[in-house]
């Protein structure tokens, strides 16, 4: 059996399977010495911070087991048996190292105790303790107990239990629910009213309120299939995919940007131009009821599915729309995290640094998946999956080629002065290149270097860039390096020898530039400065050709530059290789920019962000897939010990997770990176987690809570499911029904449990205050999207177009599109979305929090969107067309609350409107201010414009909508009243 080291804290685990030299069995005397002298010292002074028993392992060290003591801590072994002088433990107790004094804080051991410890180490650190294997594994999830966790057992299909009240259940779901209630002596709430049920179902499936017509139709349909018809109608609506697609996008940590790291943005585009194609793919797949197993496979491996439709490549956005980091291992971690939490409800990323603390996921599992994603690449060329609106393509192409041309022009304009500087001062660049390297040299050298930098006024970034050219094997500058390697005092004697080698140019593998060789033939350098002058003169001699070379490159829109000998061309391609116009495409220019230092990058001023923005926003831009492919050479990864990439442990084959594999014996993946096999292992009926996780999430979105309330973690740390049998029943039925989400919705929604009212019961509130047993329906607040989309529905302006490029969700002028089409900037999520609990797009989050804070109220009270909606509601034809106030009010109630008003509500409304009519202001606060400060409005516009960008283009700015600002005039009494309805709890809650 493989020996697995136990885990000590997050950072502590060592993957080393053995603990090195284990000392021989202690003699009786040695054992007694340990028991009488050593163990008491350890116990009284060390266990406080270093005890497995007490769950304390500072520095990754435990001393209450033999294994722990021998293994040592994060910095390695603490005891070298037989050699006290080389044992950090002895150094620490003697306070020899100011950074490592133990016990700390001056609680130094007595001299006698130190002597005992020293003697004990000297005798070979004999340790008679017998470690308890179970104890050793206490702090990792690699236990049989963890492996026997319910969620890792195969899904079964339990028989629905029998119930006393046989009249209530409509099917198996209800039997499971009722049985639990009856167990506790509880009863389900009465059925919800038809109005409440329709509102609940419509919001649940579409994220939108029902229309007055739909309410009327359902109310008048007395057939037993009335509700079933509603469910079918809603499931067939494109709005269903928009709603449930958005749920999945929370899980998939969907965002349109790479995240907040400006250092990354210097070298890659901040905005994902095509993340939205993934979002649209999700919406379409959900609307098409794509079987969930296929839904998984496409998102992980659409590129490897045989004869796959081109449009399915967009599914791979699941992997690629995550946050970007400078370290590729962090990007891989994001993908492992999204894949395992997203599809498996398992927090595998915890095993990046150590075996999982609670779940049976060893680091080897993590690195098995690491190999899969490390063998996956993102091709720079993204495939077009759909063409854009035909009438827009020409304009897009025109703008794009203009930008590309401007970039090329900028490139040559940028490079020319750099070349000037370099050619004119090549002696200086060479002399300073002697000292390159990142570290400071000794003072004398540093002085010389600084003096050279100042004398020649060298460009800092060119110095750094040139350091790469001035290597020994360089055809042009290699000779300089050969001279530079000579010691000053040896120069006179050894230089002729170096010179001879250069002029002989005998190394056929690395021939020197003939012009350089010629130049040296005429030279007799007496110092390194003389050598530099040789280059200076050489470059001076070809100066006339320099401008024409650059011009030739700029003109070379096809093929190579002509009219220059190769040796001249070779001299010209410094300090940077000069791109021809044909080569100077966006990709190559981006790479050029990446090679520049910070200062030059800052000055380079290419239009990459504008190109990015054009691709993202122009209606004529084609849709492309953010795909991945297997890399040409696939490879396994080694375990990174403690997550540190510098310390590699054992190599792990690319394979699936142990605990989820048949017989817990994962087989190595064979095909390419193994992504397809990974996807198939997840999308498998024998995988115990996949179906359960999905069913739990669907249940959560219908009832407010899942069976398990942590939808992305069904592991050992999660609470047990409230209805484990029902969860399994639904999971197995889900798989039997070919992983159909729509069938799952139908089963759930046609249950009587779903149709309970939210009516409370004082007694049951005491027994089950959180309503875990579903003795009633939960009251739920609309989330951000549902609230915003409802406002648009009320206003009559909702644009129901499905799919497309993202829109700005929060700023005026506001968009009429559904919120799912909002531009999500993970690096700067708008405050409004934050205050409405929008899902954090940095990591998978299938469950939203639901807080209640004043900022939410301020949006409804004061935002121009809320005001505009109030105006537009009142302007709806059924309201303007109503004959009288009562008619207006009834129509208004039907739109906003989908019901008719009660007499008391009518009374309130009419009084309010009448009173406001008497108090109608002539000016709004904005108009008043404007009048006060004559040019206030202009200033206001200016201020707004400034706030948006200060005139400077910033690649991280949000995209903006086109449209008009809302007029700042006062509301009418009816508009004020309508806005009050929007503010009300009833408009924001589903009951």
């Amino acid at each position, binding site marked *: 059996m493989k020996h697995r080291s136990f885990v000590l804290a*997050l950072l502590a685990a060592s993957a080393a399977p053995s603990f090195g030299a284990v000392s021989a069995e202690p003699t009786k005397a040695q054992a007694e010495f340990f028991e009488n002298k050593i163990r008491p010292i350890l116990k009284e002074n060390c266990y406080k911070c270093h005890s497995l028993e007490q769950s304390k392992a500072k520095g990754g060290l435990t001393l209450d087991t033999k294994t722990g003591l021998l293994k040592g801590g994060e910095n390695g072994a603490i005891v070298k048996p037989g050699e006290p002088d080389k044992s950090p433990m002895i150094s620490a107790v003697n306070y020899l190292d100011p950074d490592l004094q133990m016990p700390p804080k001056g609680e130094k051991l007595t001299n006698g105790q130190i002597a005992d410890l020293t003697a004990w180490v000297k005798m070979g650190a004999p340790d008679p303790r017998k470690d308890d294997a179970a104890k050793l594994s206490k702090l990792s999830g690699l236990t049989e107990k963890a492996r026997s966790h319910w969620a890792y057992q195969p899904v079964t299909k339990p028989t629905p239990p029998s119930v006393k009240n046989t009249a209530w259940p409509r099917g198996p779901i209800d039997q499971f629910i009722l049985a639990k209630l009856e167990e506790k002596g509880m009863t389900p709430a009465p059925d919800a009213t038809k109005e409440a049920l329709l509102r609940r179902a419509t919001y649940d499936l579409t994220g939108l309120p029902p229309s007055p017509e739909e309410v009327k139709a359902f109310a008048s349909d007395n057939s037993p299939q009335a509700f079933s018809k509603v469910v079918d109608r809603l499931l067939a609506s494109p709005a269903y995919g928009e709603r449930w697609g958005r749920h999945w996008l929370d899980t998939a940590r969907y965002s349109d940007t790479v995240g907040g790291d400006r250092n990354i943005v210097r070298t890659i585009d901040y905005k994902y131009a095509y993340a939205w194609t993934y979002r649209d793919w999700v919406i379409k797949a959900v609307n098409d009821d794509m079987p969930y197993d296929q839904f998984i496979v496409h998102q992980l491996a659409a590129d490897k599915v045989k004869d796959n439709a081109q449009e399915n490549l967009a599914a791979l956005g699941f992997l690629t729309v995550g*946050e970007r980091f400078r370290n590729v291992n962090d990007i891989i971690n994001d993908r492992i995290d999204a894949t395992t939490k997203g599809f498996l409800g398992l927090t595998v990323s915890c095993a990046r640094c150590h075996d999982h603390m609670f779940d049976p996921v060893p680091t080897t599992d993590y690195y098995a998946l690491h190999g899969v994603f490390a063998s996956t690449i993102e091709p720079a060329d993204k495939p077009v999956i759909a063409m854009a609106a035909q009438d827009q393509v020409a304009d897009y192409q025109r703008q794009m080629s203009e930008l590309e041309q401007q970039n090329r022009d900028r490139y040559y304009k940028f490079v020319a002065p750099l070349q000037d500087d370099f050619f004119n001062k090549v002696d200086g660049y060479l002399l300073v290149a002697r000292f390159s390297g990142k570290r400071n040299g000794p*003072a004398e050298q540093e002085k010389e270097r600084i003096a050279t930098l100042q004398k020649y006024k060298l460009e800092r970034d060119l110095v750094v860039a040139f350091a790469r050219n001035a290597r020994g094997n360089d055809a042009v500058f290699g000779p300089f390096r050969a001279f530079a390697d000579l010691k000053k005092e040896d120069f006179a004697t050894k230089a002729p020898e170096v010179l001879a080698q250069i002029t002989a140019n005998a190394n056929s593998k690395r021939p020197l530039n003939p012009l350089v060789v010629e130049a040296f033939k005429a030279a007799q350098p007496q110092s390194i400065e003389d050598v530099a002058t040789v280059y200076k003169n050489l470059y001076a001699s070809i100066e006339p050709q320099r401008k024409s070379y650059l011009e030739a490159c700029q003109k070379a829109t096809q093929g190579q530059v002509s009219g220059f000998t190769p040796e001249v061309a070779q001299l010209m391609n410094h300090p940077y290789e000069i791109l021809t116009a044909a080569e100077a495409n966006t990709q190559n220019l981006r790479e050029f920019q990446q090679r520049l230092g910070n200062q030059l990058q800052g000055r380079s001023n290419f239009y990459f962000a504008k190109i990015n923005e054009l691709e993202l926003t122009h209606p004529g831009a084609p849709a492309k897939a953010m795909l991945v492919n297997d890399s040409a050479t696939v490879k396994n990864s080694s375990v990174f010990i403690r997550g540190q990439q510098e310390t590699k442990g054992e190599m792990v084959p690319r394979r699936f997770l142990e605990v989820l594999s048949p017989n817990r014996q994962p087989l190595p993946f064979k095909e390419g990176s193994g992504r397809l096999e990974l996807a198939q292992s997840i999308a498998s009926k024998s995988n115990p987690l996949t179906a359960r996780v999905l069913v739990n999430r669907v249940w959560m979105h219908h009832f407010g809570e899942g069976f398990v309330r942590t939808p992305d973690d069904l592991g050992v740390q999660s609470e047990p499911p409230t209805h484990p049998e029902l969860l399994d029943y639904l999971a197995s039925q889900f798989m039997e029904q070919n992983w159909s989400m729509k069938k799952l919705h139908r089963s759930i929604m046609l249950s009587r449990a779903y149709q309970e009212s939210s009516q*409370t019961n004082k007694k049951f509130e005491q027994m089950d205050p959180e309503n875990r047993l579903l003795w009633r329906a939960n009251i739920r607040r609309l989330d951000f999207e549902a609230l915003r989309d409802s406002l648009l529905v009320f206003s009559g302006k909702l644009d129901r177009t499905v799919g497309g490029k993202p829109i700005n969700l929060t700023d005026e002028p506001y968009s009429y599109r559904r919120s799912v089409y909002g531009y999500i900037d993970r690096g700067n999520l708008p405050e409004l979305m934050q205050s409405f609990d929008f899902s954090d797009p940095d990591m998978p989050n299938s469950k939203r*929090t639901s807080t209640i804070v*004043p900022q939410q109220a301020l949006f409804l009270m*004061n935002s*121009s969107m809320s005001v505009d909606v109030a105006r537009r509601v009142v302007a709806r034809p059924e309201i303007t067309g109503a004959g009288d106030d009562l008619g207006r009010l009834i129509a208004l109630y039907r739109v906003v609350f989908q019901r008719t008003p009660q007499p008391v509500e009518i009374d309130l409304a009419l009084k309010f409107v009448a009173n406001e009519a008497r108090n109608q202001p002539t000016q709004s606060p904005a108009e008043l201010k404007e009048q006060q400060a004559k040019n206030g409005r202009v200033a206001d516009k200016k201020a707004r414009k400034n706030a948006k960008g200060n005139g400077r283009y910033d690649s991280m700015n949000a995209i903006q909508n086109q449209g008009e600002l809302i007029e700042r005039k006062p509301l009418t009494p009816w508009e004020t009243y309508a806005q009050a309805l929007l503010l009300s709890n009833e408009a924001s809650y589903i009951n």
Partner: protein
Amino acid sequence: MNPDSDFSCPSKYIREHTPSLKDVIFTRREFLERTGMGFGAMSLASILGLSFGGQAGAAPANKSLSPLLPKQPHFPVKAKAVIHIFAEGGPSHVDTWDPKPELAKYADKTIPGHDGLAFPSPFKFNKMGQSGIEVSEVFPKLGECVDDMAVIRSLWTDIPAHEVAQRFMNTGSLQLPKPSMGSWVVYGLGTENQNMPGFITLSGKPEWRQSSFLPGVFQGCNVNYTQGMKLEEVLLNISNQFTGIDRQRRQLDLVHQLNNMHSQALQKDAQLEARIEAFEMAFKMQTEATDAFDISKESPEARAAYGATDLGAKLLVARRLIERGVRFVQVQHGGWDTHANIETAIPKQAGAIDGPAAALIKDLKQRGLLDSTLIVWGGEFGRTVVRDRNGNATPGRDHNGRAMVTWMAGGGVKGGTVYGATDEFGSRAAEKKVHIHDLHATILALLGFDHTKLTYRYNGRDFRFTDNFGNVVRDVIA
């Protein structure tokens, strides 16, 4: 470094504070008391079947309404609020708070054991205050406040690159997104005034105020404040441009009537009640929040003390915010990345914050608020004691993560303290080293938290601000 990798932290062993959303929230009774409101006389306990056991410590009530209501930390302390002056760019420690006379001996020479050209500070250091702490002449006014300050001279960080080190200072994480310091503090303590946001930043990068996996309400609310800013634009939707305040009051009264009827029908569900009150808070926030930013209400003397600059005005606003019960204010003061021209750049940078920060300390003290307000000044790393390699004729210093300095004042800090030391040249922290995680642990301790127990359960693991590290620097706590 003392990696306190105590494995109790990410585990189930600590149950003191493992809230999910519902228990970061408060009971309605407390809620009404704090906000001075009382709608109806319902007994929420009877509705929800709860006990209002006022447990000590951070143990939250098990059902709750607003996550921002004030909460008690683990142990009682003086500090109630934080003003973090973030000196972005990496302030040079040897030119400001860490005198190194030894360095002068090596001017333009090689320091033993170091490469490069030694670059002694061009500034004089003077013994200041009763405590006689040596302070660079570039901080004449702050120098007068040293008896209220603890200067940590042995701070160090992991990676001396701006982006990473700034993230580390503000979120305790080098790379992966984690909640910001202010988010943790407001998560742990709630905020005193429900009519104000609890965590406000006056400029700075979004990730310095992000709530990450903590609920969005703990995210910092940013105001790119300038003196010329219109008050009605300081916070999102803070004022209504269409409807006057009188009509809005009547409109909200109507909403309350509608809500009360709706609530009756649904047996006064707690969240419905909470939302009713959120509207009242929002209504008050409109005047209270704009008022907090209105420094025209300050006396000319106060304005003069803080100075005429935007930075001075920001610190004055910070005081007004703290006064109104805002829990955490971060003020960004950029420009400390002095690769060149130390001799002119440092006096300019220091001069910008010297007067305002000194005014802030004195002002808070005079108002009796210094004890309850923790001021933290510092950047993301320190600087080298050798010249920057850029060869600038007027030299500067490069980044240095091994040595940096920070000071804290008020809020239970032991004034007149110097803690730790760099080596004789100032090139690296040497005595009583304080890692960034240690500083974070100390800030949390000053606010009454055991940093190992202020945790948030996310995806099966308890997360801390200090990750798995951090030792409290007790010696800077009074």
